């Protein structure tokens, strides 16, 4: 499986990542330093005294020429210095890494929901093209991308927590009285399973359901559409006609031939959806008080501390780029027609 060609491909793609990373660092530098009239004021706030502004300016190196500032800034990023949060008084990278597992758990749960709901519905939609079922699921998909995810979260909370009382209060990953499982991965569900902590497992799952479902909405709608159109494309191909002519049972045609080929572009969609999931995570975590990177950044904004958002932009983009790299490699591995 790990042919030499694959390693070469990974190497090549990683190298291509470098100019992308340079580019995004330039863009963030422009946003962080060049656009704001006075970055020092941005950091310290409106009520800062002239002396403290001067001190910060020297500390941030704002008295040096722009190109030198950029070099210092890049060197900082390579060292892992994404700035310091005025609110928590800790390095932004430290904060982000602390809150990352929560976001990861939420995102993974959303992806899981995406796959187990959108793919089957998309397949059925394609098989029953233009039926009432098809129109209904397409309508849901369209509604899904048309609604504000933070609003949907509020509706979910109102329905399932306030009215039906099925869901727990949106207080984060666990109820107030439950203590978190021993830290292994930082993913509460996984950690509870690994340490046999039944109480934490159930509680964390209960708290995970609503936010994960909320987060999955946008990407699920897209995945549903893609699955449907992918299946429709594949089903009209000649080899499917051949399979039918051979007399293969319907099930075999769908799952062994059609689906396998329709899956290939789906992997790409899953990778692209990750960006949407990151967007949604910021909003969803805010609604459900989910202590992830998104909530951290949003709370910083409320405190007029804008450094974390710049750090998150870099951090999220790097993760997004890595995910797409993995997807590209998977793509090549799975589809033997693609030459290395």
């Amino acid at each position, binding site marked *: 499986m790990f042919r030499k060609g694959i390693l070469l491909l990974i190497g090549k793609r990683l190298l291509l990542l470098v100019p992308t990373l340079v580019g995004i660092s330039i863009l963030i530098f422009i946003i962080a330093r060049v656009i704001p009239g006075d970055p020092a004021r941005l950091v310290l706030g409106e009520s800062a005294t002239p002396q403290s502004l001067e001190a910060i300016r020297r500390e941030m190196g704002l008295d040096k020429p722009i190109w030198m500032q950029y070099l210092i800034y890049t060197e900082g990023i390579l060292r892992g210095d994404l700035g310091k949060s005025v609110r928590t008084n800790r390095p932004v990278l430290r904060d982000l890494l602390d809150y990352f597992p929560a976001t990861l758990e939420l995102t993974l749960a959303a992806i899981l929901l995406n796959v187990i709901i959108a793919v089957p519905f998309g397949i059925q939609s394609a098989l029953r093209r233009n039926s009432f079922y098809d129109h209904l699921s397409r309508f849901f998909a369209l509604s899904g*991308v048309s*609604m504000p995810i933070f609003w949907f979260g509020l509706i979910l909370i109102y329905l399932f927590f306030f009215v039906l009382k099925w869901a727990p209060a949106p207080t984060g990953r666990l109820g107030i009285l439950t203590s978190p499982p021993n830290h292994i991965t930082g993913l509460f569900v996984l950690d509870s399973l690994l340490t046999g902590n039944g109480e934490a497992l159930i509680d964390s799952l209960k708290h995970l359901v609503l936010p994960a479902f909320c987060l999955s909405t946008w990407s699920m709608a897209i995945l549903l559409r893609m699955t449907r159109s992918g299946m429709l494309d594949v089903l009209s191909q000649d080899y499917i006609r051949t399979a039918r002519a051979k007399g293969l049972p319907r099930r075999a045609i769908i799952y062994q031939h059609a689906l396998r080929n329709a899956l290939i572009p789906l992997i790409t969609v899953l990778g692209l959806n990750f960006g949407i999931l990151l967007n949604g995570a910021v909003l969803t975590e805010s609604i459900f008080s989910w202590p992830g990177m998104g909530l951290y950044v949003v709370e910083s904004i409320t405190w007029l501390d804008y450094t974390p958002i710049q750090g998150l932009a870099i951090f999220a983009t790097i993760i997004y780029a890595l995910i797409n790299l993995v997807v590209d490699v998977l793509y090549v591995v799975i589809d033997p027609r693609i030459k290395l």
Partner: protein
Amino acid sequence: MAFLKNLSVSVGLVIIVLLFFTAIFANWMAPHDPIRIDLQSKLMPPGGRFLCGTDALGRDILSRIVFGSRVSTLIALSCVFIGALFGVTLGIISGFFGGRIDEFIMRTMDMILAFPSLILAMAIAASLGPGISSAIYAVGFVQIPMYARIARGSTLSVRELNFVLASRSFGASSWRLIFVDILPNILSPIIVNATLGLGSAILTAAGLSFLGLGAQPPMPEWGQMIAEGRANIVSGEWWVPTFPGLAIMATVLSFNLVGDGLRDILDPRLRGRK
């Protein structure tokens, strides 16, 4: 099937017309003053004088939604204007001149697309200082690569068509070729995506306002209203954030329906031409 498609596009168009109408005539359509605080009428449920209820400061939600349509329309049109203006320009230049310029422009577009859009918009809006104009610049900027890519792709196809080659052989200048020959013929996909982009702009801007980076109180922006009504949900006053959200959803849905319909109408024609 075609009838259903027509039905959904028609519904979308009706809603859009209603939206623009409301935005223009908000002063006459709103039953109450959207900014006047009246603590005596605070948090009243929908019904009677206040069809959608009132918020925590006693302001009529329906009136705020009506005026909010003006804000949202302004935001949507501005964002798409910025995105399309810069994006299409860059895309045409890229596709027309090719070579190093093309490389450079497209790499830059890829750079911007590398970011999750909302997060990039947040960073830009934060740098510019929270406010509605910051939100507009941020969301407009984030949309640029989409238009650039579409314009470039279409330009590449149109560039090689016979009538363009004919104009060129007559000695037409680059500017003339671009404005007279190429631009009118790449408009279809741009219009489709602009329509979809209007909806996307409203959603992203509402998200920014919800997070506090966009429209600031007391401006009646729908995303802002949802943020204000957030605490009310858990105490049972569901109407405060619900109606603004429905307004957003109806608006974006209508843009998506019309955009999809336009795509269906315009695409087969394009395909036929090739």
